[in-house]
């Protein structure tokens, strides 16, 4: 039973990635004018010769698709090269897309995972706290603040932060991954510099994101606090701290898992705007550069990488959820009570 759940989940993740690869393949061909005409015009500028064979070879070099081959062969070639990690070559940087991505991915993952942990950490703690003091001034105030902060788009806060703390006060850097003076590696200076550079993007996500999680957690906790098993546990003399963690916390956090999975996608997607504002060369930054420069191979490569990262994130979250909630992954629709 349990094994089949994991197998099923894995198959679904693989299938999703596969579907996205197919979508990118279709989209590349749909691009107005398409890569063919783009390459052709570039070549025309360079040499004036418009040799069809040469163009097709070049298009294949960039995009792994040879326009003169039958569709299914193109599709097959595209899938195999992506599966081998070959995402084509960036036209703008004239570098293999996979190399650019390999350098960029860790930074985006770093910013996103820290943001995710902080958003949910702060949201869950505050939500549980306000649930315990429901109706108090602290509760009402914090609820209002949560709603307000949640109504600010993250990029608006990002612009304000980069304007105030970056340009005007000069407290934080306005671009880059790390300072120029640190040596790459596991040394203190490097880590400190990385955190220093990532601080503002992380803050933009966390400050605008924790509010809704706090509200959700508050609602869940209030509901759980009204459950019979809380009353029975109190009568059994279970210490309040244990009730708060094992009973209220656990049962209130579980339903938030879905929200967390959605947040993974939301934050990774948001990296496009965020990294552009902070000039932070992660995956999103390159994707935006690629769009500005009509660099289709890079654009699609970045899209594919972001999607795969999100699918993986959700996959991991899903599997851990099965570990934490005993009711998950065992059919669900068979209720034995």
């Amino acid at each position, binding site marked *: 039973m349990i094994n089949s759940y994991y197998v*099923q989940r894995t*198959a679904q993740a693989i299938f999703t990635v596969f579907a996205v690869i197919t979508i990118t393949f279709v989209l590349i061909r749909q691009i107005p004018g398409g890569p063919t005409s783009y390459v052709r015009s570039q070549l025309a500028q360079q040499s004036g010769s418009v040799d069809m064979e040469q163009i097709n070879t070049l298009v294949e070099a960039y995009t792994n698709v040879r326009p003169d081959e039958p569709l299914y062969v193109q599709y097959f070639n595209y899938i195999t090269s992506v599966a081998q990690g070959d995402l084509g070559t960036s036209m703008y940087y004239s570098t293999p897309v996979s190399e650019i991505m390999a350098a960029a991915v860790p930074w985006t993952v770093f910013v996103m995972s820290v943001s995710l942990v902080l958003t949910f950490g702060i949201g869950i703690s505050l939500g549980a706290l306000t649930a315990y003091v429901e109706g108090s001034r602290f509760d009402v105030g914090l609820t209002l603040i949560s709603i307000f902060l949640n109504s600010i788009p993250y990029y608006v806060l990002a612009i304000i932060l980069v304007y105030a703390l970056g340009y005007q006060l000069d407290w934080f850097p306005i671009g880059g991954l790390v300072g120029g003076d640190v040596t790459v590696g596991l040394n203190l200076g490097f880590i400190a510099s990385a955190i220093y550079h990532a601080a503002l993007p992380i803050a933009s996500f966390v400050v605008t994101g924790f509010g809704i999680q706090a509200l959700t957690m508050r609602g869940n906790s209030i509901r759980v606090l009204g459950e019979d098993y809380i009353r029975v546990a109190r*009568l059994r*003399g*279970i*210490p309040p701290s244990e009730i708060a963690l094992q009973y209220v916390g656990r049962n209130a956090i579980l339903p938030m898992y879905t929200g967390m999975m959605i947040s993974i996608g939301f934050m990774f997607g948001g990296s496009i705007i965020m990294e552009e504002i902070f000039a932070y060369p992660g995956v999103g930054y390159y994707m935006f550069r690629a769009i500005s420069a009509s660099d289709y191979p890079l654009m699609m490569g970045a899209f594919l990488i972001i999607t795969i990262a999100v699918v993986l994130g959700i996959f991991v979250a899903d599997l851990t959820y099965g570990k934490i909630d*005993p009711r998950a992954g065992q*059919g669900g*629709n068979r209720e034995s009570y």
Partner: protein
Amino acid sequence: MSDNSFTGRSEATKADVSAIQVDDPILEMRDASVTFDMDRGESRVLDQVNLDVQRNEILGVVGESGSGKSMFASALLDAVVDPGTLSGDITYHPDPDRSVDVLDLSPEQLRELRWEEISMVFQGAQSSFNPTTTIRDHFEETIEAHNYDMAQGMAHARELLEDLYLEPDRVLDAYPHELSGGMQQRALIALSLVLEPNVLVMDEPTAALDLLMQRSILSLLNDLQEKYDLTVVFITHDLPLVAGLADRLAVMYAFEFAEVGPADEIIRNPTHPYTRSLLKAVPNLDTPLQEMQPIEGMAPDPVDVPEGCSYHPRCPLADDVCRASNPAYHAVDDSDDHVAACFHWEQASDVLSLTTDGETEHAEIVGKQSADPVVSLTDVDVHFEQEADGGLLSIFDDPDLVHAVDDVSLDVYENDVVALVGESGCGKTTLGKTSIAAQRPTGGSVTYREQDVWDAKDGVGDVETPFEAIRRSLQMVHQDPGGSLNPNRKVQASLEAPLKHWNTGMDAEDRKERVFSMLEYVGMSPPEDYAGRYPHQLSGGEQQRVALIRALLMNPDLILADEAVSALDVSLRVEVMDLMLELQDVFDTSYLFISHNLSNARYFAGNAGGRIGVMYLGEIVEIGPAEEIIANPKHPYTKVLKWSTADLEVDQDVEEPPISSIDIPDPVDPPSGCRFHTRCPEAREACARQQPSLDEHASDDEHRVACFREYDQSHEYWESEPIDDGESTDLFADGSDAAEIESDD
């Protein structure tokens, strides 16, 4: 606290209240009140209650829902939920010479009192467990929180679980949702006893369970009480259930006790008019049918309890004295221990006779049944696939087959009443739904007036009666009155929906008038008021009436009443069943009545001259005329069900169940041969190999039984060896995964 202070204070209000005292009280409750502040005023849900609990007794507290009996339970542990306030005095005597003022304890002392001295079991076992931790965690954290020795505590826990016929290892490692309702409830009882308390307060601990499970738990409880010297306070709405178990009974009405006394006294010689009416309202197997009567009127609202005796609006004996002043407790027949709060207790037995009343007679409609069946089931199978969650690969999984109904044949005639009885998960609801074409059988055929129902639906062959007509003719009344009406629609809209769709000729006004007249007919008057209400503004009985009307508006030939009265209060059940029978007369309809309660089935089917069918694990094991089944049950399982239907006998002690395993086997993998052989006290080797059939041996045309014991002496059953069930381990050998296939059951 001293007795002087108590008598001095209460003498002013209650004349001879001391009569409720006992010689060796373990708990004393004096002037205990629980109040809630509400917009409309103060709601008093426990009203100056005085009661003692005798050491080592089983005290049964009986009352309708909303009578304040759960408040009484919570008050004993000083565990009234916010914002309720508890006043008065509660004294606990750990031994006769010591007393503890429960309401004056520090939080830490209170924490030690609860569970270590006085423990509690709640109604919903499912909701009493933390769904995300194992049963073992619950035990361990309780032992740890009270600083008991872990190894010793867990050893005791295992012993308790075994006492309750559970496999300790399996249950401890399970999560709450992996256990069946009966297992959960027993695990909860074990959890409440793990710290070896002196007093166990049980608040409707079995209400959500099958009768058989209820009675089995009760008999286990009896053993536990003796083994561990417990004092048990058992709170229930079900008087017959607790009558055999309890030493003393206390009847609650309108937030105080109306009558208290030894159990046999209360049953044989009830003196409070309410107790007498309550006894008459309860369907049971012994009372002649004509004598069961509903109680008129409603229980009072806690904000607005009537002046004087709170029972006077419903009491046939009420006079001006009752309306003016609150009666004190009078000692009945000068006995020390039987008291009743009534001015007219001496007349009650004359006016409210418990024996033949003669006024209410039901028309016997036996003769009206037709020769041709309305609905006929032939060799019907319903097997469910248990699928995993809808996902990509689940298509390749091999699904488990649940045998909900196996090879059942049944005819229902016009004006017929058939009652199907069985435990949860026996497939009776599935069989019912199959009969009304709400469930497609996986084998066999269902015909409506000789038209195959599913052929009509699929348009196979010559369809004489179109499916739409069949659909209208077969209707259903559900178990849960609250859930059977759309919460977002007013009563009127819910009732008009079928008329709108089927009687297109009617205009809005006609529809409205018809709905009004129906409402009025079932006693919901003024109809304009009721029609404009949302379902939550109706009581359970009223909701059930609306559901019944809705079914009847279709003018059906057969109504499936799926546990239609089980969710109602005992005093309401007879009333609703009477209404259903009366409507049967008016509307010429048949009923398929499903119940886990043999006495309800007997009342319903018996009054209509119908049949009772007993189901076990997807098969009908016995079927026959209602009175015949009750008087002369032949199948061992029917005998078990009869045992589980508590009669109002008090002298007989709670006996061991005539069954060798409490939990029902998994319907995914039903036992071979006779399916009952794993629990049957009469089982022999032959039963495990061969399956008895309902038809082959014709002992009686009407009364048919599927058991080898009804076969003649030449059958090999009589030669084969009894199945050895001497070991206690056998009791749960087949109690594996008691999944209930009907979650609504």
